[in-house]
């Protein structure tokens, strides 16, 4: 049975609207949380892939250089205003 057909009386309808509003708010928050994962995952994959290849080669000099190259971007990656 659809919720609306159960909600015949005005006070039941109000309760239902309130409950649905709460669920939509919670859903919106979950959607936002999931959207934010894109950048967090990209951050990790970016760092890992840049240092993983020299690490797999056991080439410490290249590993340090790769890390330094990434570190050099830190100031530039700090937020700035348009």
């Amino acid at each position, binding site marked *: 049975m659809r919720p609306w057909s159960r909600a015949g009386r005005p006070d039941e309808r109000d309760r239902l609207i309130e409950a649905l509003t709460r669920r939509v708010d919670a859903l919106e928050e979950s959607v936002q949380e999931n959207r934010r994962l894109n950048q967090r995952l*990209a*951050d990790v994959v970016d760092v890992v892939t840049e240092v993983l290849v020299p690490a797999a080669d056991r080439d410490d000099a290249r590993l340090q250089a790769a*890390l330094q190259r990434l570190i050099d971007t*830190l100031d530039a*990656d700090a937020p*700035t205003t*348009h």
Partner: protein
Amino acid sequence: MAQQYAVDDTGIAVPDSLAETVDVLFDGNRVWSFNPTRDARGDRNSRVVPWPKPLRPHLEGVTEAALVTHVDGRALYSSEVRFGTASRRIRLADRDGNPLSVDKSGRLQRTFSNTHEASRELIVDAVDRVLRDLREVCGLDAFLAYGCLLGAVRDGHMIGHDSDADVSYLSRYTHPFDIIRESYRVARRMRQQGWTVARMSGADFKVWVPLPDGRRCGVDVFGAFHVGGWFHVMGSLRGHLDRSVVLPLSTVTLEGRELPAPARPEEFLAFTYGPGWRVPDPAFHFDHSRDDVRRMDAWFRAARRRYRFWHDFYGSRRAAKVPTGPSPFAQWVEERIQPGSRVLDVGCGTGRDAVWFAAQGHPVLAIDYASTHRAIVARLAKEQGVSVQTSMLNLESLRAVLLAGARWAHRGGRRHIYARGLLDTLGPTGRANFWRFAAMVQRRSGRTFVEFRTRTSEHEPTYFHTHLRTFLDPAEVVREIEAYGGRVVNQVVGRDLAPLGFENPEICRLVVRWDQQ
């Protein structure tokens, strides 16, 4: 009788009939433009356009104020006006004397109309070279966008009231994760080409181009992409636009130079600015829907959380209200650390404690994420005759935290982390990243000292009443620290620990170790 034009401290009174965009000139220089239909307040008998926020602090003195219609240059009003009580002439200029005006993002900027002919030539030249590298080195379908495209299609010239140059590219990817990684890769390639690049979000960055007069112009590189059948352009444009409107690229002419453009530029401009795009409007504002902004914020701008607030705070006069002497917490910490041990002051703000630690003989690195802190810390250090290194770290960015953490983890030696009032400014993600950073840096030795306001003080009046703050429960913070592998070795909760003006909040101090014992 209909209301006449008038200019005073409160704003600009305009007649009810006025609907056109108006330029406001001070001593002959455009300082702002407004759209009366959108910006005026009050009713038809008393219609006033209030001054925009960035202009207000400058309204002290005398100027010849003029109102001119933007499109056809019709003079509406002109009179010598005195603001406040000062008798000096109002001067809106940067340090080099270049006139400034309020731009479309609501900031006081030098705009192209105030940029010398030679500089404009150099800006177009830079846009050309940036586009060339994006296309030939990075392999992107890059083209002129926003104001640059609009100017080129309208009359072949840059738009006078614009303060930046904009280009875009159509991503070959259709998922935000891939689009972000592509943008990181492209920014890296551009740096290798020698450009100075600043990241603005997960899908747009700025290329800084030095100008001969010592200033620099920003060329913004905005990602454009299709996700789920919808077309998006950074910042927050979203709608339906077929790929064939963008590709294959065509060309347009800007300041006599042929540059790449979307396949059908007129349709692209209508998508960007709406059907009225042909009529010049320096008072134009984007009217993005809340849902579109929220989506783009979560996909690409989560790492900029609260950034604008702190950047503006440290760039404002209010920062001068922060005491310059050491905080009681700094003195408490100094009694507990070894003489000469290294201190990382994370979220150092004005650097009052960083400079004091340095004066006590500790090598100090003062870290913040608002770039405006650097000049303030440097000035304070110079005044007190000590040396303090500064660095930027955005704790909301996992990438930045992993890299900065790795850098310090690789270096030997003991270093303490000092963070007063930092947890109050971070959200849950930033806090989690801070614990991760501390755990990496101090995996062998060192202690983390944090001080924050507790939830008990959440509704008490504060000295800086508009500050964005998170009030935390100490027990919750301790649980978080333990979840990240830390041990709280000392905890103090109480008042009279950090009084500021009339404010005396309940404070929590924690000392944390991250080494494995």
